[in-house]
């Protein structure tokens, strides 16, 4: 189904390009060049394009996990963006405050600080859901606004502002920074360009580790079993002795920690300071699409992040090479989401008798969560058989 959604989006997107007088093939050639460094016509450096894609996909992986995990518990975490901002703010504050500490001490501090901040941010929604039943969609969205305005306060007139007349913070200390894979050196030439243009940093490995931890947690631990049980049916889980309230709160805390980690990685690995660009950051919202497209599975999240990272990086190359507005990328993302949410490819399959499958699962309380049950993405042991 996810692959079908992507194909559907690209076909419809291509038709849109053609209908508005563009050439869909050159548009997609530009996208592929910008995303994967393949088939470039204007002398783009392939290594640079791949590096840009990896920089974009790194935070998507961690935030994708932060959406996918609550999905498994039947919770819809729209607040990954706010949790990411909370993580980036905590990381920056710690990275400035203790800027003289050496890397072995400060780097874990800023990353853990970001995770704790993200966890607290999501934990509010978890506690409200578990105690008074406040819907997590509403509370997490509200917490996004709180984070955004807190960020504006902090760097415009607030304690983290660099100087009046600016909208950014001081840079974090050198010890708080994640190393780039290549030295950040303007004079060292790698693949024909200064090494400093390749911004891929070790946060990539942290994100991969995060997604591995997610898979382990979900399929190999008691907590993971509880989360899936609550997602399948709260009543059945309760009957089986699972504390639904505790599971909801813990799930949100862990999810928030993943998002907060993404924010901290972004500050420690790429930006090194909080700036106004976080006002327009959409990583936490793209993560919802990533989690849906990846069917909430670890491998799926990585692949979907790769696709969205490549789309993000490819859009501007497509615009300058093929003259197609990079808004096409947003259209493609929307079409992918649309076709997943509407699940109409599945509906088409149901209409064709030869392809009809037995109904997969009974209707559940949260329809969105039904997309990510075992039926949609079987556990690893089931695949390997």
């Amino acid at each position, binding site marked *: 189904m996810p692959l079908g959604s992507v194909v559907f989006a690209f076909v419809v997107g291509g038709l849109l390009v053609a209908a508005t007088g563009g050439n869909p093939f050159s548009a997609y050639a530009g996208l592929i060049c910008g995303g994967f*460094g*393949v088939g470039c016509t204007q*002398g783009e450096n392939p290594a640079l394009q791949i590096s840009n894609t990896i920089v974009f996909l790194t935070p998507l992986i961690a935030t994708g996990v932060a959406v996918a995990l609550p999905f498994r518990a039947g919770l819809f975490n729209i607040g990954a963006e706010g949790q990411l901002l909370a993580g980036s703010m905590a990381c920056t504050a710690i990275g400035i405050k203790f800027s003289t500490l050496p890397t072995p001490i400060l780097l874990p501090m800023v990353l853990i600080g970001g995770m704790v901040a993200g966890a607290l941010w999501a934990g509010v929604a978890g506690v409200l859901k578990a105690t008074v039943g406040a819907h997590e969609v509403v509370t997490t969205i509200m917490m996004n606004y709180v984070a955004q305005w807190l960020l*504006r306060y902090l760097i415009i007139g607030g304690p983290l502002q660099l100087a009046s007349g600016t909208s950014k913070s001081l840079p974090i200390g050198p010890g708080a920074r994640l190393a780039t894979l290549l030295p950040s050196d*303007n004079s060292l030439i790698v693949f*024909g360009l200064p090494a400093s243009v390749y911004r891929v940093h070790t946060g990539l490995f942290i994100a991969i580790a995060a997604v591995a931890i997610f898979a382990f947690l979900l399929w190999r631990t008691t907590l993971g079993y509880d989360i899936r049980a609550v997602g399948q049916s709260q009543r059945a889980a309760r009957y089986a002795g699972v504390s639904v309230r505790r599971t909801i709160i813990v799930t949100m805390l862990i999810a928030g920690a993943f998002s907060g980690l993404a924010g901290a990685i972004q500050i420690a690995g790429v930006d090194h300071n909080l700036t106004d660009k976080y006002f327009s*950051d959409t990583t936490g919202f793209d993560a919802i699409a990533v989690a849906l497209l990846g069917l909430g599975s670890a491998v799926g999240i990585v692949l979907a992040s790769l696709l969205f990272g490549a789309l993000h990086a490819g859009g501007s190359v497509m615009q300058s090479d093929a003259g197609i507005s990079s808004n096409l990328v947003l259209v493609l993302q929307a079409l992918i989401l649309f076709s997943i949410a509407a699940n109409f490819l599945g509906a088409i399959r149901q209409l064709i008798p030869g392809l009809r499958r037995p109904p997969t699962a009974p209707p559940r309380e949260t329809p969105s969560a039904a997309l990510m049950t075992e039926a949609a993405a079987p556990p690893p042991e089931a695949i390997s058989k």
Partner: protein
Amino acid sequence: MGQTRLRLFGLVAVALMVAAACGGSTATPPAKQYKIGLVTDIGGLNDKSFNHLAYVGLQKAITDFNVKGDVKESKTGDDYVPNLTNFASTNYDLVIGVGFLMQEAVGTVSGQFPNIHFAIIDGAGTDAKGNDLKHANVESLYFREQDAGAMVGVISGMLEKQGKLKNNKGVISAVGGISIPPVDHYIAGYKWAATMEDPGIKVLVGYSNDFTDPAKCKGVAQGQINGGSDVVFQVAGGCGLGALQAAGQAGVKSIGVDADQKDADPSVIASALKKVDVATYTAIKDVVNGQFPGGALTFDIQNGGAGYSVDNFSLPADIQAEVTKVQGEIAAGTLTPPDKIPA
């Protein structure tokens, strides 16, 4: 779908990436046609403001100098560095960053590509702390926004003083995006000139802390109108379009910024103009003529880089006369609007 097929796909993808990475770039040197790359900020080309004007300047240069002009629109702030780097790494002769918010990105990338020319509207190439790195390959295109702000300040101050506007409480206002120099310059000139025309006038100044979301500026403007403001001057890019709408809905007047914004809302009576098109065109011309000076260029009323337009409104003769007089005095240097907002 088979897991094996998925694995195979992954392997092929990785192999392609490795092959591509080792391949290196294979640019063939074309006949000398100058290549100009324009990177917009998150406002995008259709912001009816300075990104749009930069594009107008680029189009004019394409016609006049037969240059190749390409655009990359930044969707988020994360795009600034990759967009600038992509142009620079494909040997564009000039890479133009539109906007103050791109300063740090221009500073970083211009250091990586010392042989590529860069120009930046409203700023310089800076380090993370905002210090100008003074790279010789960067041309800073600054504006005396206070000149343009003063023009619309004269109009607003005199209109309010004549007492024919709706609230008539001696109050006008400005909605800024973020309190950064190019925004505050406009407001400084506006307040200074309005106070010059009517020493008793009250000028409310508010910030939305945003440049893209019209709803935020609309809220700030509505607050000011409730406080008696009769003229709302927007200095907040795409966000400010909301301020113009708020003025229109409340039946008071508004003033556009950067470009002539008469089409943005019927309430717009004038616009403070910042000729980003002139600046962009000048930078391209410098590169084409082989006379790229680097350093700072300033555009103001005197060299035609700043000004005003009167929109959806016919200016009374006495106001028109005063505006023309003040414009002449600023151009001659006998009047100098301040760059900091007066108390």
